[in-house]
């Protein structure tokens, strides 16, 4: 590849300001002594200038306002959902702590403190376990139903 060919292959990128420092210097040195390449560089510069001066189309004000409103609603929903999840996690944790703590109390009231050290399964323990499982299952099902309903309403909105 001759010097001219090499330089000309760089001219478009030069107009785009995309050359390395060394390439830029090489180009400038060549252009100082070569009128043909300098004219070619000027053509590229004009093209780049035309691209930079393209008019900026603007979105209609109503479109911007609608985008702003929709995005704000979505942002609110996203953060509301996060907050709800955090509260739900906290409540679940609290409920488990309460449940586990209530067992020894329950046994103390029904069978005496010494019963804590006795892991025998008797009907009271099983009743309590079934009661707890039923309550949790009912609570979980209610949460799922509410969540599905809420999601459906949001989709309709």
């Amino acid at each position, binding site marked *: 590849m001759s010097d001219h060919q090499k330089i000309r292959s760089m001219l478009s990128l030069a107009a785009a300001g995309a050359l390395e420092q060394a390439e830029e210097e090489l180009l400038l040195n060549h252009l100082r002594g070569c009128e043909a390449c300098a004219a070619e560089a000027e053509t590229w510069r004009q093209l780049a200038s*035309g691209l930079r001066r393209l008019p900026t189309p603007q979105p209609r004000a109503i479109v911007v306002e609608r985008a702003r409103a929709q995005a704000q609603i979505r942002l609110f929903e996203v953060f509301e959902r996060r907050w709800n999840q955090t509260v739900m996690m906290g409540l679940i944790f609290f409920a488990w702590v309460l449940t586990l703590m209530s067992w020894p109390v329950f046994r103390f009231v029904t069978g005496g403190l010494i019963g804590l050290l006795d892991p025998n399964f008797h009907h009271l323990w099983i009743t309590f376990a079934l009661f707890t499982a039923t309550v949790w299952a009912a609570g979980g099902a209610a949460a799922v139903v509410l969540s599905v309903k809420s999601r459906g309403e949001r989709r309709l909105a």
Partner: protein
Amino acid sequence: MAVESDVAQLRRGDLDALSTLVTRYQNRLYRYLLRMVRQPAEAEDLFQVTWIRVAEKIQQYDPQRNFEAWLFTLARNLAIDHLRRIRPESLDEPIGDEATGETGATRLQSHEPAPIERMVARERTGRVGESMESLSVMYREVLTLRFEEEMKLEEIAEVLSVPLSTVKTRLRRALDRLRGTMEARFPGENWL
């Protein structure tokens, strides 16, 4: 600095920060989308969807990254998905004679603007803009990111998810094609 501050507030759920960012980027984002899809109505739809996507994904945004590059990447992905869905052929090279600017998209009757609209658009964007519209989306986007958005090459590489060398190659080819189109359409005339 103001952008980083607004983005940090947005990540905390500040609605006003979102509004500020919409105002700040409205023209640039719309221009980029319009250059990508060419149809104002489609660009407006994508503009709205992009901001909704920002609201949904802002928690996943890495504050170490450039927000502009992240924003334009979101917009780009939406635009590419849209083009793939609506006009798959528009993602490829122009199928017609590039000198006449006829592409798969422009052949679609439903998107064909009236002659008077074309004339007005031509007056508005000038010869460079008109010729640019005839290029494929791959070249239009690299030209608008570099010359209109004035992004650094590294930022463009981030938006396009390609290496720096690929950005340079695309830029060079895009300029070559643009010049070729202009020389064919307006021989011996002033381009500007």
